């Protein structure tokens, strides 16, 4: 099977930035197409060379400290997504208010699906999440001590902060922002925050 790849794809392959499916296809293709293999070697060699040269610039830089991660990323996406924001806030506010009423009992009540969330929700609900409404939901992470922990999906889902697949990472519990909202954050190997969940919110299916 002959299916040659563009330089850009091979470059992305080198950086592991292709989707898993494409990564597999490229791997298979490189094994059988010497032309692409040679091109890939050239691209990889050049990438190594250039990154080595640019790395020379880094020698004097102090290593930047890992900053506290805020749940705000991808600003651009928000700019065009007012409606989605409003819907998300509405759901979060709903969950939080439920949470406040029933802090321990976590009934698996079906929450509204995000896809079905009213997209025309007014942004007027914005203040609901700020300051006072967001105040502490100090629910323990694993409150059901009596139950033997069998393998099950976590009740509190993480939200991915980007579209890349998460292969490995560490989960860090921290508080976010001035209001010290408790949250778990998944960090990738490179130190970027990859996913987040607010502790105490409930599953959104």
């Amino acid at each position, binding site marked *: 099977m002959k299916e040659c790849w563009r*330089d850009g794809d091979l*470059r992305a392959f080198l950086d592991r*930035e292709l989707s898993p499916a494409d990564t597999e296809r490229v791997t298979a293709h490189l094994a059988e197409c010497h032309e692409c293999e040679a091109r890939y070697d050239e691209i990889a060699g050049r990438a190594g060379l250039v990154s080595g040269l640019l790395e020379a*610039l*880094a020698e004097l830089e102090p290593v930047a400290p890992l900053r506290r991660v*805020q749940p705000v990323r991808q600003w*651009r996406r928000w700019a065009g997504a007012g409606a989605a924001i409003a819907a998300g806030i509405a759901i979060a506010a709903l969950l939080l208010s439920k949470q406040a009423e029933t802090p321990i009992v976590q009934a698996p009540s079906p929450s509204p699906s*995000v896809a079905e969330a009213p997209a025309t929700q007014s942004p007027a609900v914005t203040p609901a999440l*700020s300051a006072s409404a967001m105040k502490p939901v100090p629910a323990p992470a694993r409150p059901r001590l009596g139950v033997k922990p069998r393998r099950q999906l976590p009740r509190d889902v993480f*939200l991915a902060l980007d579209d890349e697949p998460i292969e490995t990472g560490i989960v860090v519990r921290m508080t976010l922002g001035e209001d010290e909202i408790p949250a778990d954050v998944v960090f990738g190997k490179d130190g970027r925050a990859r996913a987040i969940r607010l502790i105490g919110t409930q599953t959104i299916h």
Partner: protein
Amino acid sequence: VLEDVIRGVQSAGEFALTPAGAGRAGSWFDGLFRDHYPRVVAMLARLTGDRSQAEEIAADVFCKVSRRGVVADPGEELLPWLYRVATNAGLDALRANSRRRRREEEAGAETLRTGASEDALRSLMREERRARVRSVLESLKPRDAQLLLLRSNGSAYRELADAVGVAPASVGTLLARAEAEFERRFRARYGDDL
């Protein structure tokens, strides 16, 4: 446990989290600043080789952004604008620096003549290499320089795409081209001594 976490991760596509204190004026700027100021400074620090100057330039750029005010301008994306302005300011600073650098290089050569240690020699060579890399970066199209710098600072393709204002799928192509151009110019100026 981590496996559960990973399986439980949902796409953020349909969600949007709001920063604590959203709704207060200026909070969009806080978010932008938090997320991008360190990255812009790191990029500029590599470019200019002077961290405090990098911070100065970045502060200036963010100041411009805050004055610019309007965010949801459908005509122009904020992030590419921000990074472009920062890169250009960094390149300008680099050009202004080049005179100072030449003076420093001359002073270094003087040190060398008057009997320098191995260390001094090595550090001079490193400095020369840095100067070469910067001068090639300076000669590239600003977007190419920006891509190379951000990538070398460890930005993922999605972040590069946001910063440059292209689709993530075209980042590989742009990066490969920028690298090819960088290598071509480097060899043209300095021969094969890489």
